[in-house]
């Protein structure tokens, strides 16, 4: 904070964050504590989770998205569950009553977050919702379904704070598939940042000589690669994880373990939209999709999802 203007910005930021929080609360989608949540730790003041559902109710046999959504104070960030230099992503474990199935967690693509000089993490700011599919049993009586998630997270600015606990949601049962719930916009934002599988049209290729992995995306102006937590040891994701142009080269020390992660591709153009592709580079240098179950359909049909508004 050496410059007077920066100093003002640092003062203004927390006030703006509070204002944003108040506005969100007015819309009913704000960061108030759920009535049955049991949460603790200093991190709770900076990033607060809630358990939410994409629909207002669930029908027998229906699959919907549920999620843990965080409201993160401005100037603070939480972490993606992939490879970070410092802090791992939050621990999230859903539980639902007997007969329900909760599928695997899906994480929206993060942003690269560089700490002065040496450190690269992948983080979220503002709001983030980590989702999973929930499938109701076919014989589902009327009433409320009690859902829970155990959450354990770290939120940092230039210091880090921990927090943990349980978030809860009582979800109504309906005869027909539920309409979009009050937090459907948070799910739309996540859907817009979930990576898809590579297609032939993408034209992606990779090369894997002994000590590096090169990924090529024809037509790209800029690339970034967000590696998953497992896989070969990489030299420096800070140095190698972003590149101008059509190719990105990661130094590795890892032999031929497959490397999984998310490739973000900027192609220029006015909208500043990017492609987000989840892929695996095999030991032999082939690019494969990572098998993921299809997401449930957006509730209420296509006209409730606006890519411009909801990104």
């Amino acid at each position, binding site marked *: 904070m050496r410059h007077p203007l920066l100093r003002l910005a640092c003062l203004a930021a927390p006030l703006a964050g509070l204002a944003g929080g108040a506005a969100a609360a007015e819309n009913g989608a704000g960061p108030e504590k759920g009535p049955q949540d049991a949460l603790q730790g200093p991190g709770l003041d900076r990033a607060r989770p809630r358990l939410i559902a994409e629909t207002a109710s669930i029908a027998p046999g229906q699959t919907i998205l549920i999620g843990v959504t965080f409201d993160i104070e401005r100037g603070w960030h939480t972490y993606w569950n992939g490879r970070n230099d410092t*802090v791992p992503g939050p621990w999230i474990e859903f539980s639902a009553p007997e007969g329900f199935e909760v599928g695997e967690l899906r994480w929206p693509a993060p942003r690269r977050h560089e*700490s002065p000089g*040496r450190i690269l993490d992948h983080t979220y700011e503002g709001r983030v919702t980590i989702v999973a599919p929930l499938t109701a049993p076919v014989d589902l009586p009327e009433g409320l379904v009690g859902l829970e998630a155990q959450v*354990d997270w770290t939120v*940092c600015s230039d*210091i880090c704070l921990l927090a943990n606990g349980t978030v809860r949601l009582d979800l109504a049962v309906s005869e027909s598939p539920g309409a979009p719930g009050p937090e459907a916009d948070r799910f739309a934002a996540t859907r817009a940042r979930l990576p898809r599988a590579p297609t032939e049209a993408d034209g992606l290729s990779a090369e894997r000589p002994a000590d590096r992995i090169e990924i090529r995306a024809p037509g790209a102006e800029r690339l970034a690669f967000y590696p998953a937590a497992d896989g070969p040891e990489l030299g420096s994701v800070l140095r190698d994880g972003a590149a101008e142009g059509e190719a990105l080269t990661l130094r590795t020390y890892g032999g031929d373990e497959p490397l999984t992660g998310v490739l973000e591709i900027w192609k220029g153009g006015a909208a500043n939209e990017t492609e987000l592709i989840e892929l695996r580079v095999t030991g032999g240098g082939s690019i494969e999709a990572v098998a993921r179950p299809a997401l449930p359909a957006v509730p209420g049909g296509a006209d409730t999802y606006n890519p411009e508004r909801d990104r």
Partner: protein
Amino acid sequence: MFAIRRKPLIGAMLALGASLVLTGAGPEGEGVRPGDKAPDFTLKDVNGQEHKLSTILQKEETKAVVLEWFNPDCPYVVRHHQKDKTMPELAEKYKGKGVVWLAINSGTEGNQGAGLERNQRAVQEFQIKYPVLMDSEQDAGLAYGAKTTPHMFVITPDGRVAYAGAIDNAPRGEPKGDEEKINYVERALEAVLAGSSVETASSKAYGCAIKY
């Protein structure tokens, strides 16, 4: 934004360049890796006593050296020192076996947990029985590529890095799912003391970022 340095920038860069050439740190952005020569350093502890790594390694009674990057206000460090007693108990267990344990704080003025006074207090608060070295110029941190607190390095008597990474596989305090809790430093020390190779020579460190 970079930390404000007290000495002129050019002088700092020359010093850094010199220390990197002499200490053999890895390519830009990478830390030392298992098998690398451990960079030498001379640092003062919170009582003003100097500790030089090469001198420690030259002593016949030294069977291994453990470096523990430290920040007394980082919640991960606090949990290990106050609640789980991970480092204190391990340091005590191996003290009689010739293992020299050194904590290093690479925080600069104004950073969380930095400064002589704070670390002198931390030694009392946590009852730390091994030296806490002050690396406020951050040369040792940069030379090793220490990124987090804690960040652990195990060094053999002939000055090689035998292990680099996390203290254990449990950033939350408990390992994931059904995994057993593994203390990587303990396993590395057992191997080094037995003269055998370290099975897990590196792991992903976790903790609060060191602010360079």
